[in-house]
């Protein structure tokens, strides 16, 4: 009996999709980068709305994995490039200025449409700091941002959900934790 399972299933994982999109040239090469660029994983909920389930700063261009579920429950994943994300955020921002976006009002439950979710999670990274700051001054925008983003990164960055106030916590790994002079691994064995 044969047990070997092939590499085919890598494509089902997020990393496989990202690699594939880079190999097929869907993603632009790294350019002059801004620190606040983001990698988002956005997932469609049973109610059809979208929620950011993971978020991380990236040194490359911003990009997102969109995980949608169709009526039959089939999950599909696609990669959105920075250009696609910008376009979507821009459209949502225009809707917001016209008072026609979900972001104009208080959140209704968790999640929003895809455009609103992306603008809330990465408005500053995609449209620039000026617009990002303006958005952050809007309290409904901030509430929607919290209701559409479950990622640990967002929660820690926004300072919410912290439970402990103990002052006894300690850090370790002095020199080793802070930096390493070697660019290759010492721990691989």
């Amino acid at each position, binding site marked *: 009996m044969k047990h070997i399972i092939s590499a085919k299933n890598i494509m089902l994982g997020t990393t496989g999709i990202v690699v594939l999109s880079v*190999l097929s040239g869907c993603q632009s090469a790294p350019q002059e980068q801004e620190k606040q660029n983001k990698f988002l994983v956005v997932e469609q909920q049973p109610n059809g709305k979208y929620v950011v389930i993971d978020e991380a700063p990236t040194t490359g261009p911003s990009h997102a994995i969109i995980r949608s579920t169709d009526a039959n429950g089939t999950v599909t994943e696609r990669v959105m490039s920075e250009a696609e994300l910008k376009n979507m955020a821009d459209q949502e921002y225009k809707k917001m200025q016209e008072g026609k976006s979900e972001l104009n009002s208080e959140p209704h439950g968790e999640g929003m449409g895809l455009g609103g979710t992306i603008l809330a999670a990465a408005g500053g990274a995609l449209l620039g700091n000026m617009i990002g700051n303006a958005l952050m001054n809007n309290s409904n925008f901030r509430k929607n941002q919290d209701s559409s983003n479950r990622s640990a990164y967002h929660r820690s960055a926004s300072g919410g959900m912290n439970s402990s106030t103990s002052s006894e916590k300690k850090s370790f790994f002095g020199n080793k934790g802070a930096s390493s002079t070697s660019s290759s691994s010492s721990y691989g064995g």
Partner: protein
Amino acid sequence: MISLQTINPINDNTLEEIGFAWHTDSDESKYVANELVIVTDDEAEAYYEAVNELYDMYATAAQHVIDNNLFFELGIPFNLIDAIKKSWDNDVHWHLYGRFDLAGGIDGKPIKLIEFNADTPTSLFETAILQWALLKHNNMDEERQFNNIYEAISENFRRLVTLFDDPSEFEKHYDGWKILFSSVSGNSEEEQTVRLLQQMAIDAGFETGFEPLGGVKFDEEGIYDSHETPYEYWFKLFPWEDIAIDENELAVLLTTIMNNQKAIILNPAYTLLFQSKGMMKILCDLFPDSPYLLKTSYEPPKGLQCVEKRMFGREGANVKILDAAGNTIEANDGPYGNFKPIYQEYVEFPKDAKGNSYQAGVFFAYEACGLGFRRGGKILNNMSKFVGHILR
């Protein structure tokens, strides 16, 4: 002789774009070979069988060490013995993944265990992602590679919650527990290894965070990121023995956190037992007839060519090849000289036409799940190259 197939390499910019920044070694040579090792289906199947059996043998040997209090013999630091026993006693301390390094298995040579990297294995990105990307880049059939690592580790993340039950039951039982991932800062290989594991955990359905080791906070109530958000799991790409030796206070604190059931640390403390090369001597005692073991002892064997290694040596450092009379034939320096030595019967690695040696690395996550090769000289070290494979 090992058969190789030449392929088109992926250029450095593209490699960096997919997160693989360590493509060039410090001597400016390329780390990833533009060749693939040709492996037959039967050879891949044999690696799979061998590694599953070896893991079972390691589990039996760990129980033997604990029952007979052989920690000192294996060079285990005293301040982690309690953590090792505690983690071994409770299945929630699930072993996420490890990598067996093997000689043989191709070119008609028998598979022999070289060592088990159970605690902090790297080469993960290369084996799980990059060698698959090489197939895609060269329009080769991705079904022809023994590489299910991404899916296997994702599934094993789910087992942190489901344990021995069906991992597809994960959603039913998962209650928002978070995993914090950590590596030393400033080392792209280690950070990317951890980021890849983090992505596998996200795909599995976990909430996750990343914090460089120096930013992680600890108290008796748990483990926190730099914003003091508590986490139920902490994955550290940092050796347990270094925590024991360099960070005694942390070793004690982590044991308390485990005892208080405030957080679970990955890989578990018992992987330090697996990591000790002294285990290979215990394996020889317990399984003298196993075809996968090389004779291993705490004293140089008389009249037998052998390799001297240190209990917790890594990446070929402090390794010596001795001839049958005990003379050194080849030796690597390194920082592990203070650990006790073990002596393992010498075996020649399979070679290619240019005389390069090949060592197989087989990942294990609940079962054997993927194969890659390292290529170098007689002693495989940090300058050895990664070589992907294709099944024929």
